[in-house]
């Protein structure tokens, strides 16, 4: 008898339906798998055999053939175990009366018959639902992330035994109830701007950067709180929408870094160490391509501490994803595209000894050394960082300004307001924030007053700014005007934008 069971394989972030066919025939006992299974799938033979036996079920001592269709797709991983086991049971007539049609079975088996969780479950469920499947049997440990799918019957099982009892109707499993998405629910970080002492200039730069989606570079002596400031970035970014959360969760699920709460409810903050390789940054792998740090930071912040210490090639590889918001990695096994729309936040020391501009220590570097240090960051990369700000270590004991200790919520409210203005402005366009504007949009939305234009011209002459720098200053000025709730870009907005350029002046 032949049994057909539906299972899913992952191809990048997309689930691809795979039919597992089992044929149990009379003949010399044998057990074959065809249909391009990889090593881990082939090994499931033994897992399935033991799992059946240890669940009190019968492993058919007949001629068994398992086929995976479509045959041209390489099947990888252990997620097919449950589907193989169920197809064997069905084919050997141990599931009489059970309805397995159109149920998707997912899960890895332990030798005891227990079900183990698989990575990438949520993207599979989302694809399968789009393909019209509405009933799923999944490992109970994956329940948390599956809960957010909604509009489907999802049965979490702890073991193969439970699955069988459920299918034959002896002891049905209760389907999962759908969970409501609450942004920031699983909030772990304790970062908040109210814990940052002083730093009014850097705070303001953070606010502008988030409001307009600009990338940010912080330069300052060691121990001035650059990392702490960066950690506050997610806390002032707008809340995740459910769609964004799902997209981020898909990536994290495929990478196998999803936490216990099952869905990413707050914006990711990734801090790859400066020894990170290009592959770990951009994604890669032998056959299946794993998402890299830039994709894991999708929707959130990629924080590169000590920017000049990163390998040049790794940094240069960021340029294209920064521009496109996605990365396509090609390998022998195919090419995969992962979204990577992240905010880049980088920090660096101002010079090799770190004390340039310090309030209490003396810098011992020569100008040539400082130049060499800064030159480690290429112009094209710097061109993509709209805001550059100095973080200093002045003491604020004598400063009593009320804006110094604002908390993240207050800043976030202003950011949200500025984002609303941008959403209205870019209605019907494929961009959401000021930072994404191209030359055409700048022409359309960033008309400067005559006075503002003259200021920029002066700035050009004085600071020897490049044409690209002009576009960036204008974009930042647009965001500052938005924060000010001003329709026009006024001279003061341009002046402030000009003050956030550090390394254009140094030549």
């Amino acid at each position, binding site marked *: 008898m032949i049994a057909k069971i539906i299972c899913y394989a992952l191809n990048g972030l997309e689930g691809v339906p795979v039919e597992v066919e089992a044929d149990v025939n009379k003949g010399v006992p044998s057990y074959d798998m065809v249909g391009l299974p990889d090593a881990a799938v082939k090994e499931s033979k033994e897992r399935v055999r033991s799992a059946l036996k240890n669940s009190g079920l019968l492993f058919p001592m007949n001629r068994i053939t398992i086929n995976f269709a479509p045959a041209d797709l390489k099947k990888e991983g252990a997620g097919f175990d449950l589907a193989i086991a169920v197809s064997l049971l069905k084919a050997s007539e141990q599931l009489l009366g059970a309805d397995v049609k159109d149920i998707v079975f997912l899960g890895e088996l332990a030798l005891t018959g227990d079900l183990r969780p698989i990575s990438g479950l949520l993207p599979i469920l989302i694809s399968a639902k789009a393909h019209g499947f509405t009933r799923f049997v999944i490992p109970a440990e994956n329940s948390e992330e599956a809960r957010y799918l909604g509009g489907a019957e999802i049965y979490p099982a702890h073991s193969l035994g439970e699955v069988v009892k459920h299918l034959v109707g002896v002891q049905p499993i209760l389907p999962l109830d759908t969970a409501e998405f609450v942004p920031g629910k699983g909030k772990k970080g304790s970062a908040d701007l109210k814990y940052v002492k002083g730093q*009014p200039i850097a705070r303001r730069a953070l606010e502008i950067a988030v409001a307009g989606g600009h990338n940010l570079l912080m330069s300052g002596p060691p121990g001035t709180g650059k990392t702490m400031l960066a950690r506050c970035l997610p806390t002032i970014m707008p809340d995740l929408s459910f769609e964004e959360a799902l997209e981020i969760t898909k990536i994290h699920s495929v990478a196998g870094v999803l936490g216990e709460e099952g869905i990413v409810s707050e914006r990711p903050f990734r801090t790859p160490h400066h020894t990170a390789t290009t592959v770990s940054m951009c994604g890669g792998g032998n056959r299946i391509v794993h998402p890299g740090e830039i994709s894991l930071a999708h929707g959130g912040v990629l924080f590169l501490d000590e920017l000049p210490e990163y390998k040049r090639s790794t940094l240069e590889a960021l340029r294209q994803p920064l521009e496109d918001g996605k990365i396509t990695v090609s390998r022998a096994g195919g090419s995969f595209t992962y979204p990577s729309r992240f905010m880049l936040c980088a920090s660096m020391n101002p010079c090799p000894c770190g004390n340039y*501009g310090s309030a209490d220590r003396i*810098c011992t570097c020569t100008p040539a050394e400082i130049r060499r240090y800064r030159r480690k960051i290429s112009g094209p990369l710097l061109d993509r960082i709209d805001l550059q700000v100095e973080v200093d270590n*002045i003491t604020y004991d*004598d400063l009593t300004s009320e804006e110094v200790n604002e908390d993240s919520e207050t800043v976030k409210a202003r950011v949200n307001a500025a984002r609303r203005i941008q959403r209205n402005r870019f209605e019907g366009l494929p961009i959401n924030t000021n930072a994404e504007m191209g030359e055409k949009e700048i022409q359309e939305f960033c008309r400067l007053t005559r006075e503002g234009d003259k200021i920029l011209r002066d700035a050009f002459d004085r600071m020897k700014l490049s044409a690209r720098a002009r576009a960036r200053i204008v974009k930042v000025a647009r965001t500052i005007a938005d924060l000010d709730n001003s329709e026009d870009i006024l001279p003061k907005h341009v002046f402030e934008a000009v003050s956030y350029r550090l390394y254009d002046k140094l030549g």
Partner: protein
Amino acid sequence: MKYTKEERAIIYLSAMSGKDYRSCVSLLLSSQDPATLITEEEDRRAAEYLSELRRRGIFAVTLASDDYPAALKQINDPPLLLYGAGRRELLSRKMFCIVGSRITPPWAEKIGKELSRTLSEQFVIVTGLAEGGDGAAIAGAIESGNLICVLPCGLGQCYPAAHAGLKERILQKGLLLSEYPPDTVAAKYVFHARNRILAGLSEGVLVLSAGERSGALITASRALDYGRDVFALPYNPGISRGEGCNELIKKGAFLVTDAEDILSVYGMESAPRGEEMPEGREGEIVTLLRSNGEMHAAQIATMLGMKIFEATAMLSSLELKGLAVKSGGNKYSAV
């Protein structure tokens, strides 16, 4: 440009004979007419060398030349031969030297640039090609073209290499000088020798910035040896880039706060110039900066009761107007 046989003799002796400075000098002193010191063959080779130099746009000035700077002749070890490129006529003008250490605070650079600009109306400014103090002097004087840069290497080389573009501009507008044949690479020990030329050419030396052991101090002490005036910019006590300057002032150097302090020593006056003062809040910032010296942007904002980003915007406006300058760590000072 024609060279006399006497000039060719000096050029041959100091550049081509392989003799060192001392033996060249004693040879020249021992003979009545330097022209007799070389043979016909050697004279021909010197002429060839000169035409080769001319092809590269370089001229040679010898102790025997008419336009050899008079001030330089007075020192006890004048270079026998100087290579030059650019405006030769500057050699016969009055010169004033402005130097400073490579790390010069931005405010001092700004002042140095202004001083250099004003002084270049009456003097030819002499300096090196390094960044910092030298850079400020160049930036001020290059507009008028009354600028001589003395290189520590041959004219075909550039030290520091990063200033190759600047060197080209000076070549267009001013004059480059060097004691060394065009392809000589800078060595550590030549800076002392170069500094003696800086001091020797000039009527006076202004030191913009100098740490305890800065090369700018060597130029100043050479100037004293040669009986030239020494001027220095005053610093707050405890600022590491200013110890040398304060030390010079203690020992009797002229304290300089504006160009008048220098010009009056030479009985000159600068052309009067109206100073613009911005209106409103920007004016308040300038007043505050002028009375308090270097200040952090946040301090300014607090003292004037404005939001920090309003203050940074105005400061950046003042910066573009040339009235304030930003140093490291978000600090600003008036100019």
